[in-house]
């Protein structure tokens, strides 16, 4: 029997926390070429005797044992190739290897210099040749925008202790603000989806719709784990928040919220996502439910916050997709203290109810929007490919036209009225809008939209943006 080499294809994109792999993109395993005899490969029984990994430096071997163990179960050659391919993808998703190549060879060892004593006639050796990532990678960018320039320095240490831990540090020094973040990620060996993240950060934000600026310095720990078909995240976060007025003309209601608060909160998120893609899904649904309890582990802020997100997609005729989404949430202050402007919900803008100014719906004081304690928002979208499909198969596939109908409401709840009164409050004075536009996909995470919107149901105090509205972001209604 001749030598069988099975080499892998060009490196595929990594699967893991940063990017998603679509089942559509998976490339079929190529059939190996057989040099001397024509044999029906499916019927030939093989036994995988050895699986090796070569090229390890600082990575500990016990971590990798879990990823490659399934290759031993293969019973015939096609199976070996399929399982090796899957093992290769698993190794790549750890985020510690630049490249992984698979070499399948017979146990007779004609490639190696000697014959092994225990080699079976139908035995195979599978070798993964890996190239580890460098110990330290850095990046340096400058960013200019919004009357501010800043310099961003990023440092990443993949695989710090040998078991796929990752340490990242990002520092941004700007003309107005400075922010930084340090993050440590550790997966459980053998179970990459179960992982722990520790974060330390300082971020500053400016919110011109409320004339507010906020500086957060905080620490958080997060535990992710899958359970049956759902994904859960448990997180504890301790944040020192400093609020201030953005301008001297800020309203007194915002001025009253200035100062320091400490929030120590436990939160839990459950999500089920069986869409085929995060941007432009063709089918599937997403359900995400999040709750946050603050105040019982220290701190000044004391509340219970619930919010959920639901999205359902269905394919229709002619490549068009109908998508419906629903968001909602509610904030209950505990212990008699009023809620803080930094915890409340906001509504409106190109990423939620289109046709209205950014976060410019709901309770406001002298032009500054204060947010609300309960909200709901819904959207119905019809996505179609561009008319006449220019650039089909290439650039044109990144665009879609969409027709939308958005609605929502945001208000404060004066507790003691009972849930029926609260629901009634949310149902009256609904703001809604409709329109059409073009959407562009950016990578796998973000999208740009250019829409023509017609807002309706506008209440006094809301700021609208009728006509053309541009939006960019990650999460859209």
């Amino acid at each position, binding site marked *: 029997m001749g030598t069988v080499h099975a080499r892998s294809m060009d490196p595929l994109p990594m699967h893991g926390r940063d990017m998603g792999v679509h089942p559509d993109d998976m490339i079929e395993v190529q059939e190996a070429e057989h040099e001397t005899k024509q044999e029906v490969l499916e019927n030939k029984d093989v036994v995988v005797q050895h699986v090796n990994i070569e090229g390890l430096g600082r990575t500990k071997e016990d971590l990798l044992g879990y990823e490659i163990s399934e290759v031993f179960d293969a019973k015939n050659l096609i199976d070996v190739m399929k399982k090796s391919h899957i093992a290769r993808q698993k190794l790549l998703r750890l985020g510690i290897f630049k490249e992984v190549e698979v070499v399948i060879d017979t146990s007779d060892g004609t490639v190696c210099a000697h014959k092994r004593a225990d080699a079976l006639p139908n035995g195979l050796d599978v070798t993964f040749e890996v190239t580890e990532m460098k110990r330290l990678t850095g990046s340096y960018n400058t960013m200019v925008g919004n009357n501010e320039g800043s310099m961003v320095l990023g440092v990443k240490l993949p695989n710090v202790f040998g078991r796929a831990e990752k340490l990242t540090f990002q520092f941004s020094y700007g003309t107005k603000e400075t922010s930084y973040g340090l993050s440590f990620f550790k997966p459980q060996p053998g179970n990459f989806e179960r992982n722990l993240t520790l974060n330390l950060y300082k971020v500053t934000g400016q919110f011109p719709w409320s004339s507010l600026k906020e500086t957060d310095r905080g620490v958080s720990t997060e535990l992710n784990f899958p359970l049956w078909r759902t994904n859960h995240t448990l997180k504890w976060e301790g944040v*020192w928040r400093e609020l201030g007025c953005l301008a*001297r003309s800020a309203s007194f209601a915002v001025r009253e919220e200035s100062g320091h608060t400490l929030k120590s909160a436990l939160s839990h998120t459950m999500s089920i996502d069986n869409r085929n893609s995060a941007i432009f899904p063709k089918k599937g649904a997403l359900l995400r439910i999040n709750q946050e309890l603050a105040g019982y582990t220290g701190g*000044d802020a004391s509340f219970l916050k619930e919010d959920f997100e639901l999205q359902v997609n269905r394919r229709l005729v002619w490549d068009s997709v109908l998508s419906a989404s629903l968001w909602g949430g509610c904030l209950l202050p505990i212990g008699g203290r009023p809620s803080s402007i930094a915890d409340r919900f906001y509504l409106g803008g190109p990423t939620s109810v289109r046709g209205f100014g950014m976060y410019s719906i709901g309770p406001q004081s*002298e032009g500054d929007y204060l947010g609300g304690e309960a909200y709901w928002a819904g959207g119905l979208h019809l996505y179609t490919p561009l008319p006449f499909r220019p650039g089909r198969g290439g650039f044109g596939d990144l665009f879609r036209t969409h027709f939308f109908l958005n609605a929502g409401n945001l208000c404060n709840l004066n507790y003691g009225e009972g849930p029926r009164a609260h629901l009634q409050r949310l149902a009256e004075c609904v703001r809604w809008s409709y329109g059409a536009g073009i959407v562009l996909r950016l990578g796998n995470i973000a999208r740009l939209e250019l829409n023509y919107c017609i807002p309706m149901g506008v209440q006094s105090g809301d700021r609208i943006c009728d006509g053309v509205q541009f939006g960019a972001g990650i999460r859209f209604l």
Partner: protein
Amino acid sequence: MSLAAEAFVSQIAAAEPWPENATLYQPLREDQILLSDCASSLAVQAYLRMCNLPVHVSCRSNAEYMSPSGKVPFVHVGNQVVSELGPIVQFTKAKGHSLSDGLDDVQRAEMKAYMELVNNMLLTAEISRPRYSSPYSWPLNQILAYQKQWEVRRKMNAIGWAGKSLEQVYEDVSQCCQALSQRLGTQPYFFNKQPTELDALVFGHLFTILTTRLTSDELGEKIKSYSNLLAFCRRIEQSYFEDSQAGSSSRGYSKGPSLF
């Protein structure tokens, strides 16, 4: 806002009369307020009473951060927010209430000089760290207390007080009181018959030092040794703060202990 815009806004504000619901904000009386802030707040309250302008007093733990300049006290009048005695005096002048109209230029300059003296000497005579921390929870109280202490120390360095020992501080306070006592003489107020903002400022500081429970009695004793200053404080307390206590309960004033 640019200077021109600010001037325009204050001109518009000048046209409105003093509202009923004007409010003065200061830090919490019990745990939070520093001696200097207490003195400033009392000075502003005395001044407004002397002008016969009603004001509510509201204590907030974040008063310092609410203030547009970062200093307390500040008043919220209509939709204007003004902080510190100097700008408040200007603001009330724009509305037509002033106490120093009768002074000529020489006297006005003298008044400003004495106010600066009081600000420099008495204002930084006392710092107290534990008092700042209580409204916040751990560890925020420690962090903010250190921040405040560092700030005050920096300010002391800037005016050259950093190296002074306690005796030197007392000596400076004593000299300041002597200057004030000499200027006051036997008159009821610093500029003869009518009280001015200087009277309000001196009253605020001296009264706070005399009635505070925190510090040692040394400072209080130094002031008590000047009998005309003591009489001055009593007189102002009687004329402007006593009557409201007996009268309407809708106006609150935060003074705490009395000299009597």
